[in-house]
């Protein structure tokens, strides 16, 4: 799994590349990344999941952690570029009713800007 982080228009875009998002060892990595962004004053995160093939329950927990950390600070945590499998996992768990998600990072950036 690889992650990278770009800052655009005061939003952080975290790009994730993984066959399966949800290796237990990755949880801390993401949590630290979220914390660092909050410390830097950035509370709007867009997760670019366009290079994630599948997601398991640990991966969903990684997303929930980000969502909780950002929203508790009044921020935004949005998902973008998910394939059918990842959307399916959100739909089964009904987490699709919790997360904001968009077809692409560009869509997410413009929406996040408008709503904030």
């Amino acid at each position, binding site marked *: 799994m690889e992650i990278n982080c770009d800052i655009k228009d005061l939003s952080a875009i975290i790009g994730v590349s993984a066959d399966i998002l949800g290796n237990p060892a990755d949880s801390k990595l993401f949590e630290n990344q979220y914390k660092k962004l909050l410390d830097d004053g950035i509370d709007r995160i867009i997760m670019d999941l366009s290079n994630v093939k599948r997601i398991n329950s640990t991966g969903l927990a990684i997303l*929930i952690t980000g969502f909780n950390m950002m929203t508790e600070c009044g921020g935004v945590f949005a998902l973008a570029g998910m394939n059918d499998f990842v959307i399916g996992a959100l739909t089964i768990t009904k*987490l699709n009713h919790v997360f904001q998600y968009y077809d692409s990072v560009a869509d997410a950036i413009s929406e996040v800007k408008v709503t904030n």
Partner: protein
Amino acid sequence: MTNPKEFYRKFDALLSELDQIRGLNLLTEVLTKVINFLGSDLQIKRGFLYEENNETYDLVYSTRSQSYPDVISKSDPVVMLTIKNGCYIFNEPQDMQYSAIFYREDRILAGVSVDGESKKWLLFFQLQPGWEREELQLSLNSIRKIINSRISSQHFKDYIKQAEIIQKSLLPERSPALKGFDIAGKSVPAEIVGGDMYDYLVFDNERIGIAIGDASGHGLPAALLVRDVVTGLRMGIEKHLKITYALEKLNRVIHRSRLSTSFISLFYCEIESNGNLIYTNAGHPSPLLFKNDSIEKFPVGGIVLGPMPEVTLHRGFKELNTGDIVLMFSDGLIERTNSLGEPFEVDRIIEFVKTHRHLSAEQLVDSLIDTAYSFGNEEEWIDDITVVALKKI
């Protein structure tokens, strides 16, 4: 030392042998193997093992015929110095004249202490002329570290074993009897303990509850969440109480546990012997209802339990008729992949049940799990798998 290269080759061989030793004979095996592998190089003649016992250390093993005391006091200078230093070479026995172990003045000993969870052990090696302090100290300290690490690891395994026993005790021992129904369930964890659960709640002869759930992640953290959920369900669900209320309350408990990143998907239903079924589905893969000529899902409910401080769940209803089968399962079943990376998927479950619906509930569950296992080329399960079948007969 005869030849440093040869010595370290033997030392490596010894360490690798120590790594293979399993079970309770670790310390006696260590004594024997140290002498067999390195005895001639380190000038070790024999070894003795003492075990802590209240105010004394008792001799429990010796590599040769016994010529050491059966019992040594904890205040014996040899005992105290060995424990204080972890590893100590007594090369001036005249200074130890008050020690029970040095009643013969020509003895030169090396002592090693080992820490168990509730007691200590002392290993003594009797040396013969020609020993060298540096290599002896280095070797015995390394061996001591390995033994201590192995004992800690064994304790950890013991704790995990206890967790496994606790978790198994939470799974139903047998299927409930409900007039007009055949019920069976089975859960196979991918690790020693798992994040899947199923449970039966029996209210009376006419009404039972069935729960199936899947906690996020694997292993011990998931197992602990499962334990909380099983306990919470058993305490929270009561006859004639709105089932969504109990699950919404359970959600608050899970969320407040500060593990709100953890969640559990949960399907819960109550069945009456007349065939009425009430359910709510908190983000769990929908069970399948096989009617004679159609297949129905159980979509009504809400979000998984845990991530959000408050959830709203809804109830759904089904009517079961003779011949109907309800199959509940965890995602470990549908996500089981074959060598091509293709998942088992719901379609294969449907196909399987259609062609095996004549089987009893127990046969159906066992056979479906076997089929998924074969589908994955009999590789180890990478996710927990749980299946519960309910047949109206």
